[in-house]
């Protein structure tokens, strides 16, 4: 199994039968995109999970850093007015 380390890693996204968007399913090794797609088919859709598959080189993904978690996500925590539930619906408003 040593040669698998020579192959690049790919992230697999599968759109399920009822889903509208592709969801991350896992990752795999493959020598190129075509083979990655086929491996993804075998590994992640063999129980009829999907109707569409994307593969993306893992190196092409830019991820947020865990160290920056606070700066990235904290500020949204105390702003309840960004949620629709913050607002009361006035009586008499129709079609809402």
């Amino acid at each position, binding site marked *: *199994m040593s*040669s*698998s380390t020579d*192959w690049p890693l790919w992230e697999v996204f599968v759109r399920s039968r009822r889903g509208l968007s592709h969801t991350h399913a896992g990752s*795999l*090794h*493959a*020598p*190129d995109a*075509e*083979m990655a797609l*086929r*491996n993804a*088919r*075998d*590994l992640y859709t*063999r129980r009829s999970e999907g109707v569409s598959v994307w593969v993306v080189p893992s190196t092409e993904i830019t991820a947020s850093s865990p160290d920056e978690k606070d700066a990235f996500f904290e500020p949204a925590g105390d702003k309840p007015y960004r949620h629709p539930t913050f607002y009361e619906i006035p009586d008499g408003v129709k079609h809402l």
Partner: protein
Amino acid sequence: MTAALALGDDALVLSHRLGEWAGHAPVLEEEVALANIALDLLGQARTLLSSVGDEDELAFLREERSFRNVQLVEQPNGDFAHTIARQLYFSVYQHLLYGRLAAGEGQFAALAAKAVKEVAYHRDHAEQWVLRLGDGTAESHERMQRGLDALWRYTGELFEPVEGLDLDRQTLGDDWLAAVTSVVRRATLTLPTGPQSGGWAAGAGRQGLHTEPFGRMLAEMQHLHRSHPGASW
């Protein structure tokens, strides 16, 4: 009867050979791919063998001489390129065969209509690998060529007449050769030149004559059932 046995034994035996890769494939992803293909073939074998008798008896209690598979599918796995060569030769044949059977109205039309989609993937899998190994490194190229050359003499038997299979074997053979030639050329490999049939070629599996490795394969495939008759999970 003969045709169902012939097609069923092809699928059963190749399924077992591919199953032998479990735990031994070059990479995990490829192991799953080969196992998936093996399971597709096993499903086809079960349908075909069940149509002529008890599937377990036919698979596990028949002697070597009673098997009707072509000799190509019983050939040992060899290295990965050797297995891929076997896959290319057989899956192109099976894809073309099932395509024809699915289009007809014979007894195999329903099975073939379902199986042709599975086999289309087997064929694609083999072709993709032939292209990559043939047009890969010097060593992968050499191994792929060696696999194609070694198994060539077993390919003529694919187009021998089978009782109960009513189709134009000439065009089947022509289409197979055109498809295989195209892949081999694109992979920068050379189509083998030796005879496919005749005196120096192999192939009497349909008559029950098999090559030496087949006996050992059957022993492994059948020993559990023979040691524990009637056992179940």
